């Protein structure tokens, strides 16, 4: 057989949860193999077993037909297996080179010799077109570049079997295209690739074969050319998925939020990240902010929510000024926020799920009395959200957030924010890392918020999402709003031009403000 890797009958339990239940996964040499499945289906777990992060409870792994034991990532490295994790594992304050050689350092008499490594990195970079500055600090480079660092890290260790865990969740569309090209190149060179993703279009575009997992079980492996997007989606979630969103016409009401001439000077980057931005959101509409990452969307949201202080400008919620209100005041007045970075802001990873679900409301009478926490009430509340939003985890309300799958962590945040029923919901990349079924569900929830007369500000790097959901689209480029568009009359192409800065219109002032 020409399988490089065979994982036969793999079982892995976390307590009573069967994360992998007799899964068989076979990787051919030189192929791109997609691994798809719902959130919590066990994809990351399966690949972590292959990479030696977890030991399988049952089953065996064969490498070129020979049975092997992979006890830790070092064993995996020896077998030339490399992995890019769902959440990157880089050291912020180290340079790119230092991160790449970490754990695999060249030393001379106990001293680090970086020169050769640096040369090798530059060679690899040029050969695969993975542009990064080897001397930049990781904290100063964009997420897309960080991913290239992770890829270079695998290549530096001469990996032949490359595992990508949701590599595109954090990338811009351009970066995704580049990554897909790179991956095809790897395959052409004879490397074997596993890619975990929720974006089925990518699967169709790049993969030769794909394997579907559902609830820990292997549903099947097939050639991508023999299948279709719809069929894949159905196999994943076990029901038909509605890809087109049926959206009722918007019932636009009074203005709920207004930003006037907002600017933010970013001291770390020494530039004006948000430059005189004005806009408003009405009740009953979804306003989408499109833009390539790093054009000020993150900073704009941070100053609205109060995570950072604006340099200039004013905010109004229901005509009340909230410019200088504390974060708690803003939340109480009706702001909701699905944050961009779920690990940094959205969750206390070491708390269990139920405690994460009350992060903003623990002090309300529902959950406390005289300062004492009402454990039962919290538990009941958590159970409700878990069943309504289908949050899956090994231990239910008591699961530690850190142990939950990426998509389910995201669902927990969304459940919390939507349940607070805010008048203005700011949703930043709300469906990042979610499976198609969950995306459909979240989109419906966002639309329901809108239809019940709330305002939604949707910030997303994904144009599809913006186009499908928004009633109005704002495009940000270089800290400014460069276009205000109607999704019914605009096109992907036009938005793309604005996003890349090749087209600009004089719309910096809000129509109303």
């Amino acid at each position, binding site marked *: 057989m020409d399988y490089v890797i065979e994982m036969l009958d793999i079982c892995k339990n976390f307590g009573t949860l069967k994360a992998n239940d007799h899964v068989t996964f076979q990787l051919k040499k030189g192929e791109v193999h997609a691994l798809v499945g719902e959130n919590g289906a066990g994809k990351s777990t399966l690949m972590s077993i292959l990479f030696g992060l977890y030991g399988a409870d049952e089953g065996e792994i064969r490498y070129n037909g020979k049975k092997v034991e992979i006890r830790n990532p070092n064993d995996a490295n020896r077998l030339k297996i490399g992995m890019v994790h769902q959440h990157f594992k880089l050291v912020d304050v180290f340079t790119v080179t230092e991160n790449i050689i970490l754990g695999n350092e060249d030393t001379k008499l106990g001293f680090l010799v970086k020169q050769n490594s640096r040369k090798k990195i530059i060679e690899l970079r040029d050969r695969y077109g993975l542009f990064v500055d080897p001397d930049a600090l990781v904290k100063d480079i964009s997420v897309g570049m960080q991913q290239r660092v992770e890829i270079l890290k695998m290549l530096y260790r001469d990996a032949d079997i490359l595992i990508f865990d949701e590599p595109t969740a954090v990338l811009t569309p351009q970066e995704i295209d580049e990554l897909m090209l790179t991956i095809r190149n790897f395959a052409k060179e004879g490397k074997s690739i596993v890619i975990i993703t929720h974006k089925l279009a990518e699967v169709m575009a790049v993969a030769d074969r794909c394997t579907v997992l559902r609830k820990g079980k292997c549903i099947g492996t097939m050639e991508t050319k023999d299948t279709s997007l719809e069929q894949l989606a159905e196999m994943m979630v076990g029901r038909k998925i509605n890809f087109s969103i049926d959206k009722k016409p918007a019932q636009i009401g009074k203005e709920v939020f207004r930003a006037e001439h907002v600017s933010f000077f970013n001291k770390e980057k020494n530039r004006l990240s948000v430059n005189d931005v004005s806009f408003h959101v009405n009740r009953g509409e979804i306003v989408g902010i499109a833009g390539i990452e790093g054009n000020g969307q993150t900073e704009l949201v941070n100053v609205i929510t109060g995570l950072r202080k604006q340099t200039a400008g004013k905010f109004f919620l229901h005509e009340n000024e909230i410019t200088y209100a*504390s*974060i708690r005041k803003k939340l109480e007045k009706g702001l909701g926020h699905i944050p961009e970075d779920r690990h940094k802001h959205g969750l*206390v990873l070491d*708390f269990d799920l139920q405690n994460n679900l009350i*992060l903003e409301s*623990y002090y309300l009478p529902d959950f*406390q009395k005289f300062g004492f926490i009402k454990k039962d009430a919290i538990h009941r509340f958590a159970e409700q959200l878990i069943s309504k939003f289908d949050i899956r985890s090994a231990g239910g309300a008591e699961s530690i957030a850190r142990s939950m799958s990426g998509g389910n962590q995201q669902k927990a945040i969304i459940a919390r924010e939507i349940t607070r029923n805010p008048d203005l919901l700011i949703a930043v990349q709300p469906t990042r890392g979610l499976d198609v079924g969950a995306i459909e569900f979240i989109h419906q929830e966002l639309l329901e918020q809108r239809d019940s007369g709330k305002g939604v500000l949707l910030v997303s790097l994904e144009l599809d999402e913006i186009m499908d959901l928004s009633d109005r689209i704002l495009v940000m480029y270089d800290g400014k709003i460069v276009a205000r568009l109607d999704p019914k009359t605009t096109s992907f192409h036009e938005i793309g031009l604005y996003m890349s800065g090749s087209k600009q219109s004089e719309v910096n002032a809000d129509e109303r403000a």
Partner: protein
Amino acid sequence: MKGHELWNKIKAFSVKAAKATWSFLKKVGLACGHGLKKFFTGSGFRSAVPSFLSIGLGLVFGIFTMFIIWLLVRWKVFDVVNDPKFFLGVTKLLMGGFNQGMYSVGYMLYRAAPLILTGLSVGFAFKTGLFNIGAPGQLVVGSLAALLVGVKLQLAAPWHWMLCLLAGMAAGAIWAFIVGLFKSVFNVHEVVASIMMNYIAMYFTFWAIENLGIQNQFCIRTGPNRWTCSLAPNSVTVLSTAALPKGLAEFFGGYSLNIGIVIALIAVVVMYIILHKTTLGYQLKAAGFNREASRYAGMNTKRNIILSMVIAGMLAGLGGAVAIMVSDKRMFLEEGLMSAEFMSLGFDGISIALLGISEPIGIALAGLFLAFIRQGGDYMDLANYMKELADVITSVIIYFSALSVVLYQWISKRKAKKKTLLKGEEGSDER
């Protein structure tokens, strides 16, 4: 022929029997394994595993050291006056607080009280994401405040000592408040500020003892009705109304044990409730795990930093008050002695918090353990060992528990390895 058949039968039977016992053993093994796994995965116990391990390793190390000393003396590498008695030494050490029955138990509990309180101080701060290395300073000013109130005021018994306790808590709180303020307003790291505050606390206390009229005097009779007095290098003691009552002392051999341990245990319960049952604990823990997320959720992180520090300071200050509110206790006007007697209690708090995984109940146990081992150390002279061996052992334990994460990983890896080994055997059995 018959013999041959019989032989075959026996062979078949024995193979069967062997297989049956093997599968039975396997089942039993699995069941035991499962039970053990369940036991170990109980979250509280599980996180305490490294502590128990370090204690075990520390003790083994200590006993090993004692053995080596014993050997070296036997082989005449050292010349000593009194030969160490290995077995007696080990017994004395391990008997700890039980060496002299109730009397030594009482002394151990007396010793444990301030240790538990400073442990709580550091542990609580840890839980909220702060490293309170300022416990020594907070403790010393707590002692000073309690002493001042205990000397300068004339009050009836319960009110007097209660007021002293409050004074100690207040002083510790103020000391820690300054650190919290610096951190939340000027973003000065609490460790830096705390270390400075520790020095200030010590010299301020020296100054206060000398200048606020609480320095001890010793007087010599130089004639009829004539006394010549001069200043002693230490402080006075608290008035008897301000000394902690010794309610239980009778029972514990009529000495030393006061209600300090009761106060400490009350503090343990209170801290447990605050941490696990209140919204205050909830938000402080949230900030401890992820300050950014707590900010995102609308919690007032600046206020919370100050609040955590103040609570931690109160606990350390209370520890200081408990330590000084004893009828014969004095503070010495000398750096070395001050450090050894009072400041070190604060530093012990760090070790205890580590060993007790910052959980109030763990801290209570760790504090008692430290007192137990030190008590055992005191009895080791009887076996001609130095009592400092107890300190060696505790230091080793602390080192191990500081390395506990690594240790724990190492053990899990070992476990995993064993599992794969077992699996290999199983495989060969089937083939």
